[in-house]
């Protein structure tokens, strides 16, 4: 029964993503109905972009940075000044500088790390014009970059990767927006509020007066899931009954977390003109996802005997139970989404281990929209380079050689993960101002630290709730690390794409290193595990692994 539900979920996911990829291929290829093309052209003219002009990787990266920098400045000012701006029925004041910095970075980098509580600290204007807008464009940025990177690997020899403004516009207008409208309507039907009126004051059955926060939630939640943003309208995110009222809304949101990342695998295969290439990447991701999900499921359903028989229900909504919480937890950490429907801090140690690994390897198991695919292509490049020599040719992927320049860039991109997680985490584990955030002592506290810094580096956004990430030290440090985790990968990946597209494509022969099929999938999984996960094995040993072995010995933290 449980297995059937999971299989049904995966089948629905793959089916929908496959269909979506067909549409996405048309969107990015410009094969749209002429009415849409005219609308798009009008909008681009308005913004002053020259859509016909292709961009070399440097220009593309500059456009990404310029656009995101502008977004950051606007959002930062908005958050600081929200108290004086309209659409603020609950009269909420502006955010402190460090929190505004953290929040602005968080939403611009598609992380949606929430050091604030939405309903208490943000006005409707900040939520709608600030965060929801960023939910769209930060997701659109990731998708545009992914499409540019794909072109670098698969398109005919040339110099340009496409036009950022066109790719961004198309991602938002023709993919994110329509999907969000459908999902938002569905969620509103299931009971998620979408209103501009302020909080409701009601007297409950216990006779106490309570303030029930509400607002324009459905729209933001739809895009928070589809765009792997994860920043909820309410502080407790999708565990809140207004964000996620029913089993149906829960399933729809679980699906939409992974929908676009999975579709990107298919899109890759389509654009490469060899769908097996997309399937291979998807298979590698799926193998790791299912393995992780299985661990989380078993841990959560079995529960902690020290606390009595039954599943581990601490920090979980009774409505969803262990299984739906496990599925959500695995999906949200795999996909760099970061929304939660249960409190990850309360999960079993090995579940925490899985979630940490999913984030530490760089959010490449499906990953963020677009970001997951270009992150995985980084591992593909490394896997091909390491093992490709074993067929007696210098390594090549999709006919293009991987040489010194690409390896240098890949190593640079790869370094951002240990830099953010290990260096950031090490400082957080020693500096007293940072240590104050730890709620539990011992290995679980270590997991909390690691989780926060892995989440920021991987642009995930979820957290172990016990960790006091609102301290000025962390809002600043995590903000910087979110920037590192986003742009220290985007820029080298675009550079790799720019270098690849200049190379001739060797035709496929029986001497070509096969990059599809079970053998390559195994190789790719092993590369991710050995290069990605092993880097963090020592710290994992001190966190969740130590916690688990202690738990087995009857000790708890």
């Amino acid at each position, binding site marked *: 029964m449980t297995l059937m539900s999971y299989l049904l979920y995966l089948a629905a996911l793959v089916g929908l993503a496959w269909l979506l990829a067909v549409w996405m291929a048309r969107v990015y290829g410009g094969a749209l109905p002429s009415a849409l093309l005219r609308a798009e052209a009008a909008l681009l003219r308005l913004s002053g972009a020259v859509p016909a002009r292709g961009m070399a990787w440097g220009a593309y990266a500059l456009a990404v940075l310029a656009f995101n920098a502008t977004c950051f400045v606007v959002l930062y000012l908005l958050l600081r000044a929200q108290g004086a701006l309209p659409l603020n029925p609950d009269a909420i004041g502006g955010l402190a500088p460090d929190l505004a910095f953290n929040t602005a970075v968080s939403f611009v980098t598609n992380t949606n790390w929430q050091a604030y509580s939405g309903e208490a600290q943000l006005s409707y204007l900040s939520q709608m014009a600030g965060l929801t807008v960023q939910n769209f464009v930060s997701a659109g940025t990731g998708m545009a970059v992914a499409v540019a990177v794909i072109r670098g690997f698969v398109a005919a020899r040339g110099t340009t990767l496409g036009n950022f403004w066109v790719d961004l516009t198309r991602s938002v207008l023709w993919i994110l927006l329509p999907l969000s409208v459908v999902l938002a309507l569905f969620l509103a039907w299931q009971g998620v509020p979408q209103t501009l009126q302020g909080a409701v004051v009601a007297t409950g059955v216990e006779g106490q007066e309570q303030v029930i926060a509400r607002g324009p939630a459905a729209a933001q939640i739809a895009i928070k899931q589809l765009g792997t943003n994860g920043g909820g309208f309410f502080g407790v995110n999708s565990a809140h009954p207004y964000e996620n009222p029913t089993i149906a809304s829960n399933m729809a949101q679980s699906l939409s977390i992974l929908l676009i990342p999975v579709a990107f695998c298919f899109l890759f295969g389509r654009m490469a003109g060899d769908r097996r290439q997309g399937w291979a990447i998807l298979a590698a991701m799926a193998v790791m996802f299912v393995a992780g999900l299985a661990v989380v499921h078993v841990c959560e359903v079995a529960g902690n005997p020290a606390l009595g028989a039954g599943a581990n229900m601490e920090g979980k909504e009774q409505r969803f139970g262990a299984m739906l919480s496990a599925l959500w937890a695995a999906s949200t950490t795999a996909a760099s989404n970061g929304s939660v429907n249960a409190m990850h801090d309360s999960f079993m140690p090995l579940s925490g281990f899985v979630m940490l690994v999913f984030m530490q390897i760089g959010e490449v198991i499906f990953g963020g929209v677009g970001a997951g695919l270009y992150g995985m292509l980084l591992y593909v490049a490394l896997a091909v380079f390491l093992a490709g020599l074993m067929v007696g040719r210098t390594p090549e992927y999709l006919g293009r050689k991987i040489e010194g320049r690409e390896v240098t860039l890949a190593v640079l991109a790869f370094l951002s993960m240990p830099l953010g997680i290990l260096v950031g985490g*090490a400082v957080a584990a020693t500096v007293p101002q940072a240590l104050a955030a730890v709620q539990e002592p011992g290995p679980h506290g270590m997991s909390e630290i690691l989780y926060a810094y892995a989440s920021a580096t991987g642009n995930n956004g979820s957290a172990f709730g016990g960790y006091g990430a609102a301290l000025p030290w962390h809002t600043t440090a995590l903000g910087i690390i979110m920037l590192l985790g986003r742009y220290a990968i985007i820029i080298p990946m675009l550079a790799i794409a720019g270098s690849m597209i200049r190379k001739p494509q060797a035709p496929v022969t029986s001497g070509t290193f096969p990059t599809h099929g079970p053998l390559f999938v195994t190789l790719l999984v092993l590369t991710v595990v050995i290069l990605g996960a092993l880097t963090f094995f020592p710290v994992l040993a001190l966190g969740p692994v130590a916690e688990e072995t202690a738990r087995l010995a009857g000790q708890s933290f």
Partner: protein
Amino acid sequence: MSKHDRPADMSGLYPAAVRQSIAKLDPRILWRNPVMFVTAVVAGMTTVLGLRDLLAGMPGAGTSLHIAAWLWLCVLFANFAEALAEGRGKARADTLRATKSETRVRVLGAADDDPATGSETLSTALRTGQFVHVAAGENIPADGEAVRGVASVNESAITGESAPVIREAGGDRSSVTGGTTVVSDWLVIRVTAEPGKSFLDRMIALVEGAERQKTPNEIALNILLVGLTLIFLLVVVTLPAFASYAGTTIPVIVLGALFVTLIPTTIGGLLSAIGIAGMDRLVKANVIAKSGRAVEAAGDVDTLLLDKTGTITFGNRMADALIPAPGVDSHRLAEAAALASLADETPEGKSIVDKAREVLGGVPAMPPRAEAVAFTAQTRLSGLNLADGRSFRKGAADAVIRLTGKIPPQALAREVDAIARSGGTPLLVADGTDILGAVHLKDIVKPGVRERFAELRAMGIRTVMITGDNPLTAAAIAAEAGVDDFLAEATPEMKLDLIRREQAGGRLVAMCGDGSNDAPALAQADVGVAMNAGTPAAKEAANLIDLDSDPTKLIEVVLVGKQLLISRGALTTFSIANDVAKYFAILPAIFVAAYPGLGALNIMGLASPTSAILSAVVFNALILVALVPLALRGVAYRPASAAALLRRNLLVYGLGGLIMPFVGIKAIDAALVALNLA
């Protein structure tokens, strides 16, 4: 191929290699190999800390120094591998250097001056453009081009081939190499290389590895290894912070040991040895690579352009069948064909006699007082007139018809047509005025080439046959040899076009050539192999030179290139897969004090934290030296498709690399405990 197996006396190389591995500890040299440099730094640091503890009388100093010793050994083993690889080249360079000697030579004012008028000078003083007269028994003092005379030259000093070769002015055999000896006659040579820049000098530098530059793939791999080292540096330097949070401290020496076992020392230590050994394998095959890049490119080749003559066929047409006319006994035809060819010394004639011998079981001896009739362009016939008046002739069909005045029977005429259509050459045999039958002369494809091409196809390499034959003949031979494509009536321009076309499709092309007119194509090809006997222009344009002047060598070069790349990839994969076991050895050892539960990670059941750390370090050093022979010899390589190669190598070096260290570390741990060393 016995001349290729110069059994270099390996045993003599070891003492020199051991001395070299210590000399290579010089930081200025070590710096060129970042992974090993880092290992040496850690080893030095561990030594200093160990000595400090020893002097302070602290416990554990012995273990520290023990670890330090194995870290130093790891560096020395890597140096040893490189020194051994270089040593083999050096041995060969020394024999080459022996042929370089200062002699007195006769310089002429102009090419056609009388040798007697020449002035004597030292061979080392020769300059480009001077003319030198070299007589029989004298050494050729410098690289040059024969401008006058014909001589047989012994080139064994360079090629190892003891049979002398002909060098003559003009044509494609005019190039001479300094250090070779004129055996008979004399030559006037125009010097083409300055002293110190001759072919011999270049060869010495190459085999010695003095001019060795890292190849593109080697550089890229080095960058990755440095990157991995940097990542593990981050892992190790941040670990004390996490450990202190957990309430434990990790000794610096243990951190150093963890660091060295995690960084890719195995491949880092063997990388340059693999490269040098790969070049050495080429040298053993008597091919000189002008750059390492060409060897790497050889592994990537997609299309091989092969000359028909000498590579695919024996180069001469040979009798393939004797076809009697209707009513003629096959023995009678064979006898007549043999008699008509007895006096014919050409390979074709000999092959007809051989074919007749197959039919008859023996051939008639040359009859007494028989008169040979030689082939002329007018008659286009050759044969024998016997003393008894009988005459035997063989020749082109129309010539024999004119001679006999008879038209061959219809069945025979059909056979003759069929032979011509199949790309062969039909000859008719006549006894007096009787046409007895036909001889089918054809290009004979060398045995084994068909299988060789099938292997190449499995490896994804396309073969294209280049021939001056007409398309009909070319197609027939191409089909028989199993090449993928052919270029008939080929001119140098057509070759160049073909290469450009292949390259435009993203393919890498290899070819070999010897004539001056091959130079543009050799330069255009990604891998160009020039025959040593070829012209200086061809040798200049190519990036590989085959000293044996054997066109089939091209295939060997491709295989050497592939083997080099596979060896590199296999050891890289092995090295990185090793890390898993090392984590399981060291992590429980360093954390078990803080969290006793983490002892569960000690899945190998190592005796104690100290023995676990020491075992990992010892394994790390021993695996490096254990793999030296593999690095020098190259990974076993059988031609197969990429998928099959990947499956096999991933299983052996990937899975093997995962499992083996678990076994090895456990065994070392047991040994250390048994020896009471930990």
